[in-house]
């Protein structure tokens, strides 16, 4: 590997295949680069293989074929724990990710696992809880928190390992709109302010609008790549992968079909602006 690769790609998957054993590949010949510092959205319908992707990227599952590199280092058994601490994963169910009853004990878990000393763990807890805006809940009982709050604690638990990459595996799917907003706010801030590389796996197409770049998965392969705007300009293709346009895309498309020359925007203020321009 060359020196230039190191700062370029946080995650690189080359020709990766994986199967769970019974019939057919779950991931097939997949190539993906996640650039350092970017916000990537991974879209796909249920069962398209996007959750397997998350488990491969942090070595919970190992590919049958192909190679995965994290910051230029090939992910193998020898470097597993080292690389795992650099790629954090937050999962779907807010109830199934916490090991301790008290918030601070849970956030400490990862930092304890890598053998940090007490003072450092204390500092990491401070950092992680304030990064997700949960400082006031340090001594709270996890089971009494709302779904969004639990999920923020799960993020904090990952942040305590100070990862360079954060993968959210449908972490918003089980939350109400308020909880969803909380999570999206937290990760976009981490991406902007802390320079954390974010991979947001989701089937809420609206959430992908915030990303720098998006890919669409179908049957274990990446079938579309581009900026969210580029991807959503190919609405018919999206539909063949069992995904829909964001509602705003549907409306602007229908207006265009009705003969109104509105642009292909994904921002409602802009769309309103365009409509105003067309009718006046």
């Amino acid at each position, binding site marked *: 590997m060359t020196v230039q690769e190191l700062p370029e790609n946080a995650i690189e998957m080359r020709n990766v295949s994986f199967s769970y054993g019974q019939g057919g590949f779950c991931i097939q010949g997949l190539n993906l680069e996640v650039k350092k510092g970017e916000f990537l959205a991974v879209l796909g319908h249920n069962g398209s293989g996007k959750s397997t992707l998350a*488990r491969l990227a*942090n070595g*919970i599952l190992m590919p049958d074929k192909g190679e995965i590199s994290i910051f230029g280092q090939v992910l193998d058994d020898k470097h597993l*724990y080292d690389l*795992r*601490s650099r790629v*954090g*994963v937050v*999962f*779907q*169910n807010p*109830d*199934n*990710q*916490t*090991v*301790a*009853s*008290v918030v*601070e*004990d*849970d956030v*400490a*878990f*990862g*930092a*304890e*696992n*890598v*053998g*940090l*000393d*007490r003072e450092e*763990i*204390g500092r990491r*807890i401070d950092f992680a809880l304030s990064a997700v805006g949960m400082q006031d809940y340090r001594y709270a009982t*996890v*089971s009494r928190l709302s779904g969004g709050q639990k999920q923020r604690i*799960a993020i904090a*638990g*990952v942040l305590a*390992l100070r990862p360079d990459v954060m993968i959210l595996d449908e972490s918003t799917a089980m939350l109400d709109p308020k909880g969803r907003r909380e999570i999206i706010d937290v990760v976009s801030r981490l991406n902007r302010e802390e320079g954390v590389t974010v991979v947001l796996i989701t089937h809420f197409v609206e959430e992908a609008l915030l990303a720098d770049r998006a890919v669409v998965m179908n049957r274990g392969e990446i079938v579309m790549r581009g900026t969210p705007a580029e991807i959503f300009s190919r609405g018919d293709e999206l539909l063949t992968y069992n995904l829909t346009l964001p509602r705003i895309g549907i409306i602007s498309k229908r207006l265009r079909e009705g003969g109104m020359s509105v642009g292909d925007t994904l921002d409602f203020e802009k769309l309103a602006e365009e409509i105003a321009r067309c009718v006046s």
Partner: protein
Amino acid sequence: MKAVAFGQYYPANSFVHRLDPRMKLLFLVAFIVAIFVANNFYGLAACAAVLVFVIAFSRVPFLKVLSAVKGIFFLAIFTGAINVLFHTGEKTYWAGPAVYWNWGIFCVSQEGIVFSVFLILRLLLLVLCSSMLTYTTTPVSLTDGIESILTPLKWVKFPVHALALIMSIALRMIPTLMEETARIKNAQTARGANFESGNLFKRIGAFIPVLIPLLLSAFRRADELSDAMEARCYKGEKRTKYKKLRFSWRDLVAFLVMAAMIAGVALLRVYLGEIL
């Protein structure tokens, strides 16, 4: 929504609450020893006095503490009755015949009555002091305390850490699984399941539509949790521990009280002898 009063913890910020859980566990053990060292009513009275003192400093209402006895009320009565009937003895404690009534192996004697009362008091003290531990210590800190006390067992390769983690996860999951049980039960009730009538056999059968989804969900949760733990670099070894229990001046005070109690009860035993 529904508060789960697990482990009967009574939240307060008292002297007793803030004691180190290890000290409280040690105190409980010492208290139990004291109850059994005491072989006369003065000894028990001394134990009871210490207990009253502890309760007063814990800010747990007396009635709340006493309510812990409800659970063993019938056990206490039963134990008392058995002992009255079977204990024989000639000692007299008050004017009147030593034996009131005798029929076969049953007899009611003065000594039997006194002995029963003594036993019941012991039992009550035992229950009260144990419940004081759970009233003033959260399950979490109790787990921490047990882990810390068991730490020396690491030398004989006993997996103390793993055991502590299992206890911690269990405590974390109990409220979640209880909520889930209620939810599934509701859903099956809405589909006409009947948990309330029929004979015992029928009622157990009625729980199958609750138990199966609950088990499946527990396995699913375990699966996801193990992924989440792995993703956070859990490998079961070379871990450090963030939470460290520290003894403070309070624990020293508690230790002195404990030592005084043991010494006092022992002295009472030696100098006053067996009253029974």
